[in-house]
């Protein structure tokens, strides 16, 4: 579904990604793990069209989307749930969700999708008319995921969804992701939390200094001594 090859990208003249190759097949849940600063966020943003790559290809369902901008990525069916819970702070939960489905591709299904999201995250339904800024971190994370789903994505990309959440909320969030994947949604997940993300995913990539250093089935990666060594503290 998603095929990345030789991707070079970064900010201005400074390259952060030095030739990334990565694939995600339809229906997979793929994890991208790496330490802070390894280039995960840059890769996510480049896929979502926020950053224009300097070289390489990003093919989604066979068509090239590299450097075409965020609007093109959304139109193709990619939704990025950014890190840092980028909600629209002075808007209500409902307004945030509506914005998620504002793209013409998603607009006709908004009401139906909204029902599904409220089923998935009942707490969002309770807080429907509350301003996003006044909600807790966990609730904001749910909101951002919900907003991403409103775009009717074929591929949902999540950047550090567990960052700064209590273990209980992390469990809840990951539960929801697993459920979504089971329902047929393709997911690409970038995480520092190696243990957790490898536990839920089918396959995994390890990124270091802007390069993919290891790849394989998640269960293999979790047992791999190299991964264990690199992320000892986290295992």
């Amino acid at each position, binding site marked *: 579904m998603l095929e990345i090859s030789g991707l070079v990208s970064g900010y201005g003249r400074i390259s952060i990604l030095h030739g990334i190759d990565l694939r995600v097949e339809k229906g997979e849940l793929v994890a991208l793990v790496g330490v802070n600063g390894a280039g995960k966020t840059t890769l996510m943003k480049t896929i979502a069209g926020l950053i224009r790559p300097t070289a390489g290809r990003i093919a989604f369902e066979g068509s090239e989307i590299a450097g075409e901008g965020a609007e093109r*990525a959304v139109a193709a069916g990619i939704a990025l749930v*950014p890190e840092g819970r980028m*909600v629209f702070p002075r808007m209500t939960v409902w307004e945030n969700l509506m914005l998620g489905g504002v793209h013409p591709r998603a607009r006709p299904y908004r009401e139906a999708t909204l029902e599904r999201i409220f089923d998935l995250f009942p707490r969002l339904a309770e807080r429907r008319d509350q301003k996003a800024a006044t909600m807790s971190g966990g609730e904001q994370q749910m909101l951002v995921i919900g*907003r991403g789903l409103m775009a009717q994505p074929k591929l949902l990309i999540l950047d550090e969804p567990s960052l700064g959440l209590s273990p209980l909320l992390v469990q809840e969030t990951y539960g929801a992701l697993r459920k979504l994947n089971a329902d047929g949604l393709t997911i690409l997940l970038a995480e520092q939390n190696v243990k957790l993300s490898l536990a839920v995913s089918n396959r995994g990539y390890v990124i270091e200094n802007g390069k993919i250093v290891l790849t394989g089935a998640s269960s293999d990666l979790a047992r791999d001594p190299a991964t264990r060594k690199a992320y000892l503290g986290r295992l």
Partner: protein
Amino acid sequence: MSAEVLLQATVQGLQMGAIYALIALSMTLIFSVGGLLNFAHGDFMALAMYGALALYQSFALDAYAAAPLLFFGFFLLGFLMFRRLVQPVLAAGVLAGAQLTLGLVFVQENFLLMVFGGDYLSVPTVLSNKNLVIPPLTMPWPLLVGSLLAVVLAAILYVVLMRTDFGRQVRAITQNSDAAALMGIRIDRVQAIAFGIGIGLLGLTGAIIVAQFTLTPAMGLDFTLIALIVMVIGGLGSFAGSMIAGAIIGVSESLGSLLYGGTVGAMIPYAILVLVLLFRPHGLMGEH
């Protein structure tokens, strides 16, 4: 001072205040586009007023009839201007944007001076010199129409921004433009349309209030300052706040002039601005 005179001055101040609010409304809308502080605001309105004059002189078109034309004309002007000029500069920062509009003040003032000359001009309209008299009050019709329009436009803008997808997109861009991009919102287009509507509203405003003022090429800056004051006191981005702030400024200016003379009247808006900014930095109705 008799109660009658005080009442008349208060009503007059309220109407002037509504006009100020009307000018501040479009400034608020423009501000919501990437935080642009438009120092050329009053000059765009002056341009519209001269536009009304030109339409009257060439086609004997009444300013009120010209208002929709000017709205569309200025919408296009604003849309194109945003695309070609404002947006690239705004990308370099909000201050660069403000500085650009300072440059536009120069351009517009002198364009008007070149085309229309420096004389004071006036545009007669169907409502010129017509008063609504409800003893003991006298209310000039141009002011009344302007005030009513201010209220109506504020309501429409409120609904558009708060209750429509377009409005939500504009607000989303203001609050977090990266996240807005991720929603598939075409930021430049939404911003250009919003900016166009803001400038278009100025075209409309200029035509509606032209009967009340005398035209001179350098008139813009005074209106910019008053609009800035009203917008800031009301709270950036708050249409209801602009209406209230307009009323406060209009009435205090009017009563100040009545009771203490014109110089004090002219100083009052600035004094209120300083006090409000110090004690309520986000304005009367602004959100934090």
